[in-house]
């Protein structure tokens, strides 16, 4: 009998607000310890929290993107536990009345596209960090992160493989960056994931006992940890054991999960509504104002790129994995409508992405890429030359130099394609003379050597020969009687 895994994810999305969830201190990463912790963040006696409307607006934005219910009234609650990096002895979170409920995220599942329920998304403040190194054996507390706004996004237990969980996570990651509510930086903890994993017999309707896996700070770790945990639980069950309800920690070095604490050690957080904060009241006008600023969402945009430009689904999906990338692609086409969309898509998802390897808009301005692709399309330069020019432009941008004009660069580098047949003829003759052996083989029927001759000619011309024309000339010349050989 086979097993079915059931996975639910809890993702902490750090909202990209200017200030913290309940104080005016800057919500930034990387400042010296405690430099961005104000009296409120430190939990000094007498201080009070004041909700940040920007964070609430971001939560609404997220809810609208998921087609979720935005509750007109939501309540902040206190969640109590003692820890040195939790200055008030409680975290302000939302418990019984979250701001967002019942949304849907479409994922590419193991059996095709399907919806995953986002059960709830609630606002809460982050804790600080405990430091144990470089303090001469003592421990320190850095409260810079204390109070930064998080949106905790909880999925239903609806995924069935590590791959599905990974896909959900990537879709969510794309979405929150797309909406401009999170920078998505996983190394800095802007996007953190806990996974709830259980297994059951295929066909069973009751959920198995789950474990919660913490410390998953990359997509790869999430997938590895879940895959490991599924195998572990199946092994436990098949050997006649019982899965315990527990919290487990993923150890990336060993690629395994290990027990952190069991159910009996689960804490009683003593939630109750925070009396320092009134319920968050969201009126229709606020929601409508935010709705009007909503961008075209990733799924809709992917569908449009497929339909309008005839792009394959996978390529449209790649282009819409990042809003800046999708915008970049369409900006290239807007500047040079003559560039075929397929060519632009290939370059953006190929050469440009290979150079770029990061978030945000690529360095070389879309107008420059558009000109470059137009020249390529017009046959002014070869593909190889275009690639070389792109790299030069990229480096100039990277070094903060003003990038050169594309046409100037073509001439400076001498990359304008040679299309004068007289010049090309000379080239063809030179290659034929230099390769008697290959010429003989070609004539004996080894047709694919034509590409070799073109390549040699391209090399000798430093990439300036028009490969298409060269191919024609070689074919004609070698088909004719060997002249003067």
């Amino acid at each position, binding site marked *: 009998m086979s097993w079915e895994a059931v996975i639910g994810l809890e993702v902490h999305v750090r909202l990209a607000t200017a200030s913290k969830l309940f104080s005016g201190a800057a919500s930034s990463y990387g400042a010296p310890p405690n430099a961005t912790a104000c009296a409120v963040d430190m939990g000094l006696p*007498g201080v009070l929290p004041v909700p940040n409307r920007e964070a609430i607006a971001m939560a609404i934005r997220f809810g609208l993107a998921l087609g979720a219910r935005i509750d007109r009234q939501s309540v902040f609650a206190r969640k109590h536990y003692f820890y040195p990096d939790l200055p008030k*002895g409680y975290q302000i979170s939302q418990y019984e009345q979250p701001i967002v409920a019942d949304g849907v995220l479409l994922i590419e599942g193991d059996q095709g596209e399907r919806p995953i329920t986002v059960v709830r998304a609630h606002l809460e403040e982050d804790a600080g960090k405990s430091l144990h190194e470089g303090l001469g054996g003592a421990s320190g507390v850095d409260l810079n992160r204390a109070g930064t706004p998080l949106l905790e996004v909880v999925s239903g237990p609806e995924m069935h493989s590590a791959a599905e969980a990974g896909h959900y996570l990537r879709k969510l990651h794309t979405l929150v960056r797309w909406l401009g509510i999170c920078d998505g930086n996983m190394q800095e903890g802007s996007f953190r994931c806990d996974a709830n994993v259980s297994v059951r017999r295929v066909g069973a309707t009751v959920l198995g006992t789950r474990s919660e896996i913490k410390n998953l700070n990359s997509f790869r770790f999430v997938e590895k940890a879940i895959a490991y945990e599924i195998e572990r639980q199946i092994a436990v069950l098949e050997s006649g054991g019982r899965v315990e309800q527990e919290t487990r920690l993923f150890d990336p070095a060993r690629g395994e999960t290990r027990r952190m604490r069991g159910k009996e050690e689960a804490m009683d957080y003593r939630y*109750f509504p925070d009396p320092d904060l009134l319920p968050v009241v969201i009126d229709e006008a606020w929601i409508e104002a935010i709705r009007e600023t909503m961008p075209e969402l990733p799924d809709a945009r992917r569908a449009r790129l497929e339909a309008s430009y005839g792009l394959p689904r996978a390529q449209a999906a790649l282009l819409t994995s990042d809003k800046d990338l999708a915008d970049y692609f369409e900006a290239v086409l807007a500047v040079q409508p003559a560039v075929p969309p397929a060519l632009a898509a290939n370059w953006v998802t190929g050469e440009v992405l290979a150079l770029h390897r990061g978030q945000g808009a690529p360095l070389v301005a879309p107008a420059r890429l558009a000109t470059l692709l137009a020249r390529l399309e017009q046959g002014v330069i070869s593909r190889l030359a275009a690639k070389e020019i792109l790299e030069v432009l990229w480096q100039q941008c990277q070094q903060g130099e003003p990038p050169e004009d594309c046409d100037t660069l073509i001439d400076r580098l001498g990359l304008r394609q040679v299309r004068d047949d007289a010049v090309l003829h000379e080239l063809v003759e030179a290659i034929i003379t230099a390769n008697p052996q290959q010429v003989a083989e070609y004539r004996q029927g080894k047709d694919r050597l034509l590409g070799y001759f073109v390549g040699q000619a391209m090399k000798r011309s430093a990439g300036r020969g028009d490969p298409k024309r060269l191919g024609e000339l070689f074919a004609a010349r070698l088909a004719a009687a060997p002249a003067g050989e």
Partner: protein
Amino acid sequence: MTDWRSVTELSRALASGSCSSMELTRHFLERSARFAGRLNAWITVDEAGALAAAQAADRRRAHGEVLGPLDGIPLAHKDIFCTKGLLTTCGSRMLANFKAPYDATVVARLAAQGMVLLGKTNMDEFAMGSSNETSYFGPVRNPWDEGRVPGGSSGGSAAVVAAGLAPVATGTDTGGSVRQPAALCGISGLKPTYGRVSRYGMIAFASSLDQAGIMARSAADIALLLQVIAGLDERDATSATAAVPDYMAHLEHPLAGLRVGVVDEFFGPGMDGRVAAVVEQATAILGNLGLRCTSAHLRELHLALPTYYILAPAEASSNLARYDGVRYGYRCAEAHSLYELYARSRSEGFGPEVKRRILIGTYVLSRGYYDAFYLQAQRARHLIAADFHHAFEQADILLGPTAPETAFALGAKTADPLAMYQSDINTIPVNLAGLPAISIPCGEVDGLPVGLQLIGRPFSEELLLAVAHRFQQATDYHRRLPEAFS
């Protein structure tokens, strides 16, 4: 200058040039030094700071740059308000060494009017108490009888005003902590509507009940200070947006025909009959002033005490979680583990009453008990608020004795917390409903003052002050001074 002087009169004296702020400040500092040992009403006296502030006030006056009627008038703050650079202990060993890096909004607003801070007054630890006996710094004594309590938790503030060590003081009121000590010390004390005054910088006891108030010699003095501290503060999300009326102007508004409901249930079991008689006389005086006194009921009043002793400890257990010995405040010596650091710092830093309430509060918020206690208490709280709402359909203000008896002997109730909690039986329901109320002196029993409590609709402070002011124009109870300090 040992006789009775209100802020209003001191302000007039400063304006006329008949005395300077320096003279006034020295006068109160000297009295404070003289009586300090007897009353134990101060935790901190800031002589240097007070004299510097007074000098600055006199300089402004000399240059014609007076900030307002309070410029140069000395005052005392309850040691629950954060004051930048001064100790703010909250009456606890936990904060015995704590200096706040910022001023509470109430402190900042009064300072901006040029008021001269004399020092910080003693109080029940974290404002938990009705007799000022839970203070880590020892009990305060009642100026009317030094063998008796001043009430609490703002006992120090009540005592300094009653004994003439300061002309006016701030207090805070979570279940009666301004009104009950005001009653027991024979002064006037106002607890404003919840949200009327910012709680920012006021160390939290029970956030949904806490409210800053003024303790003074007269209703008119309260009006002067309330004018400054009332109003929206963006640093307190629960602070009210309602406009602040001109309290001084309202003092003289006509009151004829105003309906006063004498609440039957305020004269319940445990009420000293002699106190009740004094309050009945006071009611008659209001009748003579043209107010229409009728009988009123608060049928759910019996729910108030149990409701309060679930909700207030629940919030307190949460609010006091931050005192963990990690960042500030008391830290035990030689902890060998994090758990030990927490357990011992809190065990050694908090006194028994605070610990009792943390335990109760933790219990009622625990899984499995939350619904039966916390949620049930919230429902009861709504019933009590609704009860007041109904009563205010028949009356414009409600009336009763502030406390069931006059000041009791030191130590009389320390062994019996439930008896102690009964002291606030008439004040606690007002906090649960978030209403404004004032206590004013209205007579004596055996030489000890009796307080009259007037309760109003939300944001009707101007009406309460006007009635209290009219009563004080017709009587002289508020002008009486304890003999030992006159």
